[in-house]
């Protein structure tokens, strides 16, 4: 599991956490801890998410209407708050993905430049 002292893994870039959360819940409703696991799992345990910033981010996204939440039963029969993507959230995820790809391409080409 995540070890806070480990410094071999990459930390999430500033400003990309929202995008990652949207992506995680786009694959199906998740509770907070599930979002954390899903991101780590997709990244192949390469990415560390500061757990502290997860919940404020979830609340911010819900506040902005990108995700919605409701209470439900978790896999171990406990009540948990599940987040799912809303229609505006899906649109935003698409936009942010496009922008990220474009940015990554541009920055990559700059960094690849040799002269």
């Amino acid at each position: 599991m995540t070890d806070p002292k480990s410094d071999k893994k990459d930390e999430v870039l500033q400003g990309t956490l929202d995008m990652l959360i949207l992506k995680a819940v786009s694959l199906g409703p998740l509770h907070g801890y599930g979002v954390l696991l899903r991101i780590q799992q997709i990244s192949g345990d390469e990415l560390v998410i500061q757990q502290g910033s997860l919940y404020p981010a979830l609340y911010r996204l819900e506040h902005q209407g990108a995700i919605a939440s409701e209470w439900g039963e978790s896999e171990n029969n406990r009540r948990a708050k599940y987040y799912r993507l809303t229609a505006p959230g899906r649109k935003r995820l698409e936009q942010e993905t496009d922008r990220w790809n474009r940015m990554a391409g541009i920055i990559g080409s700059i960094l690849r430049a040799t002269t």
Partner: protein
Amino acid sequence: MGVRAFCLRAGAQVRSWLRAATRRNRLEWDMEAELANHLECMTADLARAGVPPGEAARRARIALGSPALRKEQMRASLGLRWGDEIAADVRYAWRMLVKSPGFSAIAVGSLALGIGANTAIFTVAQHMLLDRLSVPHPEQLRMFYWSEPGDGVVQEMWGFFDNPPGGGEVSTSFSYPVYQQMRRDNRSLADVMAFKPYDRMTITIHGETAPADVEMVSGNYYSVLALRPQLGRGIEEADDRAVGSGPVVTISDRLWTNRFGRSPDVIGKTIFVNAQPMTIIGVNPPGFTGAYSAQGTPDIFLPFSMQPIVAPQNMDPSWPASLLENKPLWWVLVMGRVRPDVPVAKAEAALNVTLNAAVRATMTVKNDNQAPRLMLRDGSRGQNPSLEELEKPVAVLMALAGLVLLLACANLANLLLARAGGRRREMGVRLAMGAGRSRILRQVMTESLLLSVLGGAAGLVLAFAVRNAIPRLLSDAWAPPAFSARFSWPIFAFAAAVSILTGLVFGLAPAWHSTRVQVSSSLKDSGQTVTQRRRGLAGKAIVVVQVALSMLLVVGAGLFVRTLMQLGRAPLGFQSHHLLLFSVDLPETRYPKAASTPLLRQMEEQLGAVPGVKSATLTQVPLIAGNVMNMTFIPQGEQRKPDGNPSVLANHVGMQFFNTFGIPMVAGRAFDTRDTPVSRKVAVVSESVVKKYFAHVNPIGRTFQVGWNHPQTFEIIGVCGDAKYYRVRKEIEPTVYTPYWQESEGVHQATFAVSSGLEAAALLPSLRDTVRRIDPNLLLLDVRTQDEQIAANLRQERIFASLTSGFGVLALVLACVGIYGIMAYSVTQRTSEIGIRMALGARPQSVRRMVLREASWMVVIGVLLGLGAALALARTIAAMLYGLKPWDPATFLLSSALLILAALGASWIPARRAAGVEPMLALRHE
């Protein structure tokens, strides 16, 4: 982000914020549960990976971090932080206020006094100056005014008139025939109606008689005002056709409540108005004040068609019996409603032509510029007679109350500044720990706003408590208050706006001051205070301003109090003590023309014979009551001049007038039984008449002529001492007294003055019995003593003296608080300096002197500034003063002395404290 997306997002945010803010408990519970759930899941995962349970839980907690911090961040994500911070600020501010109760009490108290005074004055001002007639769309109403040159055609007037500075006359009164013609020919206003606030009439309801205020109205009054009675119908055209066609009245809500218990059966009931039967047809809505003013209280409304029957007036034998046919007398008020399609200027021009034609049709106009010129003025407040009279006094009071508020605000600013100084360390620590400047600014502002809002609330309570004091001051002592102050939204808005503005404006500087702390220097235990003296400069400037403002207010109070004293001391020329007055009204419906004379004679004689009464007399015009009668006066040997002769004051009086009022006879004799209704007409003149018209001859036996239409000749039989007539403020004017029983048209409204050593309350029952025996239907109206009458005449002066004295005392207290505060603060700041001085050999007296010297500088500068401002103020209110110059030396010297003494008294306590500083303690304090 597109517009649509933005809107969606903004909508979601508002919804989410509202949900979070309104269901706070639920939110807290959710966050708690969610974080707990997270920890549990993670602990379970770690345990499954082989970590011992205790260690697993510990690691999970470390990974998540402080739950309190997380929750704070989650709340911030929902936009709740802002509100939470304000709530925290208010809580903190409250704690600070409670911690220093003295400081808070002074700040809140002074603001409460300042805001309370302003709100109380504003309540009256808004009522007097801003209230409109309670009819639909009062702003569409236009009041008809006219102006004419000094030799204009209108000579006989009953109603309001004014002499503008340019000469000539301005009035609102028209003759009834002119009104009728203007209404007939009007094309430019929606309609034109007429009304007249008539003299008091006697009404009899269920056999019980009482006086009532009457408004006489035209048949279209209700339709032009768009007034709908709450019960029954209004007066209609059919009621106002021929004389006597409408024996009907509508009554006020107040009369309906007081006399009929709000019974709906009142419609169709018969009441007697001046002994004439009239049928009640409607009840006006509550709040309707008649068309004359928004403060009026007419009880009954009747059509003009009833004037000759209910209230016949025979003022002049050459006039027709009916006022409705009277062409020379101008007496009815005219009002119209504008038409949306005709501009007012155009309507005015058109109606001016109409007026001109109507005047020419009813009167003789010798040349064109003699004719009155019509003016349409705002009628939304009726004629609003109180406006002209009260505008300036109310403005002066508002200004003075504003100064008091300014003083209170200066105090607040000063206290906050001193406090900011005392909290430098606290601010330094907060800044050092990472608090933002704006955050600290906001918090300090919250404190000052809290203070000012508390002060405002207390001020509002204060104003509410005294809300009826000013209306009572404005009314006669023997009558109910002319109006009651209503508390309405504008007043709340006013108080709220004043308090919030105060808090913002006067809290900003101290707040700014607190945030400009240098973190490093404020954290050092301030060794520099020994030499730091500049810091108090802002505070001292404020104190100087406070002293100057108080000087202004104290001088103002002094001037008004001295004016009242001078008026109280002014010789009246008659003795006013132990005189009981009451008025009677003999309607001509029962006592036509001179038929009233024998009855009045009988009353005079029998009242004089009541046990305990020394003498009793009739006086047609009561003295010092603001009413006056005057006549053109042509002494024997002079000719009637075409441009008018000078006039003198006149009064019709009874046989015992001169000894009842103690006016000495200087020559000749007073009236006696030799003067009968049929003997030659006689008069007693005052000494100033002799001085002015008979300077070098013996006046006794000489004659003079009075009157315009029907000149009458009087023979002078006596000369009496000069006496004031209608106002204490007015200089003595030449006055002519004639016996009322020689008046061929009779006297119908009169006042009796009874001189007696008995108390009014003890005497009154036997006076009532006497009058009832003579005529059971006569009412004793306006029972008051002559001294009360004089006090009422000085009402405005008394209001000014008492209110400004209150303001002056308030100002003095506030200035003393300010001086005490700044000196106490300065002594605390300089404790170590004083300690060093004393350690080096300064004696306590010299330390005390040093502190007092510092205070005196501020006071002297403040007093000098205040003197200058007070001189300017006194010049503007010179017209309101009496018997003293605006630069009255006594007032200015006394005020300065008072202020300097009070200020030195206030700084005495800090000075003594400074002198008592223990050098060792003060130095160790570092």
